C-alpha cells in the first residue's frame, strides 16, 4: 500500500513512526555518553545511538528526487552506504509495511546570534568573558574593539570593561579571557587573551571616571581589526550632543542610537559589589527600541565616520550609558587598531 502525500496521515503511519522511534530510543539511551563525546569532536559514527537526529513523517526522496509518497522519515547526522553499516546498526527499510526514508542533515546545534559565536580571528563587538576557572561562574560581556599598545605597537589587546574582564577588581592580572563568553559556551580551549590591566572601580558612589580593562591577545594574529557587522574603525573622537551612533554588542547585535546627554554624572549604578558613580559619561537613547541590554557591556560606540566615541558600560530600561573613549585610551595608553 502506498501512502500519498496528498492524503491525510494515516493511523498506521503514525503507529509505524512511534514504533521505530521507541526502538531507536533504546539505542540512544545506551550510547548517550559516547554520542556526546563524538558530537563534541564533530566526529560521526553509523550507529543510530550516535547518528540519529530525529524522526517524523515526510516525503520519501529517492536519488534526490521527491516521490509524492509519504513515509517514516529518519534524519541522521551522516548517511552511510548500506554496505558500510553493520547489520545491527541498520535502520529498517520499512516498519509494519510503511516505508522508511533516511536523510543525512549534519549535527543539529542550537541557533546562536552572530555576536555570540566563536570567531577567529576575533573581531570587536563579539561575546567574551574571563574563563570559568578565573571567576567560578558563567557570564557574558562584549569585547568591544581591538587596540594596540602606544609603547609597543605589536602588542594587541581587546578593550572592554573592568566588570567584564577583571570581575570588578577581583581578577588577577594574567587571568585567561575566552571567546565566546562562558555563558555562550566558551571553554578553556577558547582562550584568546589574558587580563593585562584595568582601572580599579570604587564603590558607594565614590566618583569614577571609567569602567575599563584590556586583555592582551596571546597571538596578535588572533585579533581582527574590525567591529563585527560595522567594519574597520577609523580612529577615536569625542562624543557630541545629538550625534547618531551605532554599536555592535554580544546581546543585541548592531543597534542605532542618539547621544542625548553628555557630561552626565550617573549615581547608584547597580554592580555586584555595591553602587557605582560614574562621572562625565554620555547618555544614549535607541532609535528603534533598546540601544543595548545586559551582555552588551564593553561595546564600542561608533559615529557615522567610523570613529569610536565611547565604551558602553551600563544602562536601564530606557537609556544606555557610555564612557568617552579618549579618556579610556589615554588612561590605558592604547590606541584604536584601524
Amino acid at each position, binding site marked *: 500500500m502506498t501512502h500519498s502525500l496528498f492524503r491525510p496521515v494515516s493511523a498506521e503511519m503514525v503507529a509505524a513512526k512511534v514504533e521505530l522511534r521507541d526502538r531507536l530510543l533504546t539505542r540512544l539511551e545506551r550510547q548517550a555518553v559516547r554520542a556526546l563525546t563524538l558530537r563534541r569532536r564533530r566526529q560521526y559514527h553509523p550507529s543510530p545511538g550516535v547518528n540519529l537526529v530525529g524522526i517524523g513523517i515526510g516525503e520519501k526522496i529517492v536519488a534526490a528526487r521527491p516521490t509524492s509518497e509519504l513515509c517514516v522519515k529518519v534524519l541522521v547526522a551522516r548517511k552511510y552506504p548500506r554496505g558500510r553499516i553493520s547489520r545491527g546498526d541498520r535502520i529498517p527499510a520499512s516498519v509494519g509495511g510503511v516505508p522508511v526514508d533516511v536523510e543525512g542533515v549534519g549535527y543539529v546545534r542550537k541557533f546562536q546570534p552572530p555576536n555570540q559565536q566563536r570567531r577567529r580571528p576575533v573581531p570587536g563587538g563579539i561575546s567574551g568573558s574571563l574563563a570559568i576557572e578565573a571567576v567560578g561562574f558563567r557570564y557574558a560581556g562584549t569585547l568591544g574593539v581591538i587596540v594596540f599598545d602606544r609603547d609597543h605597537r605589536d602588542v594587541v589587546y581587546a578593550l572592554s570593561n573592568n566588570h567584564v574582564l577583571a570581575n570588578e577588581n577581583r581578577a588577577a592580572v594574567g587571568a585567561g579571557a575566552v571567546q565566546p563568553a562562558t555563558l555562550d559556551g566558551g571553554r578553556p580551549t577558547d582562550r584568546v587573551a589574558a587580563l593585562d590591566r584595568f582601572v580599579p572601580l570604587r564603590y558607594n558612589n565614590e566618583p569614577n571616571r571609567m569602567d575599563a580593562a584590556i586583555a592582551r591577545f596571546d597571538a596578535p594574529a588572533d585579533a581582527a581589526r574590525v567591529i563585527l557587522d560595522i567594519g574597520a574603525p577609523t580612529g577615536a573622537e569625542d562624543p*557630541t550632543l545629538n550625534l547618531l551612533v551605532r554599536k555592535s554588542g554580544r546581546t543585541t547585535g548592531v543597534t542605532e542610537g542618539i547621544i542625548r546627554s*553628555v557630561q552626565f554624572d550617573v549615581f547608584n549604578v547597580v554592580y555586584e559589589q555595591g553602587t557605582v558613580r560614574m562621572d562625565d559619561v554620555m*547618555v544614549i537613547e535607541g532609535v528603534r527600541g533598546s540601544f543595548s541590554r545586559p551582555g552588551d557591556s564593553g561595546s564600542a560606540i561608533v559615529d557615522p565616520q567610523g570613529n569610536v566615541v565611547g565604551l558602553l558600560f551600563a*544602562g536601564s*530600561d530606557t537609556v544606555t550609558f557610555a564612557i568617552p573613549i579618549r579618556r579610556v585610551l589615554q588612561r590605558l595608553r592604547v590606541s584604536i587598531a584601524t
Partner: protein
Amino acid sequence: MEMPVKAQRAKEALVKRLADQPGFVGVGISQNPAGQFEIVVMVVEQTSPVLAKVPPRWQGIPVRTQVGGVPRKF
C-alpha cells in the same frame, strides 16, 4: 565637545544639591531641538521623591527631568 562653561558649572552645583535624594539617577547636559543647552536630571521613576527638589531653572539654565529607571551594569 563648545559647551558653555556656565552649563558645566551649573550641572556640578545641581549634582551637589540632588546627590543624596531618593530616586536620583544623575545630571547631565543636553541640547533641545532649538539648539538651546539645558540641564537634564534623570530620576528612577515618576514618583521619585527627588522630583520635588528639581527646579525648573538652575543658575539661569532650563532644567528638564527624565524618567530613566534603575541603572545597572550591562
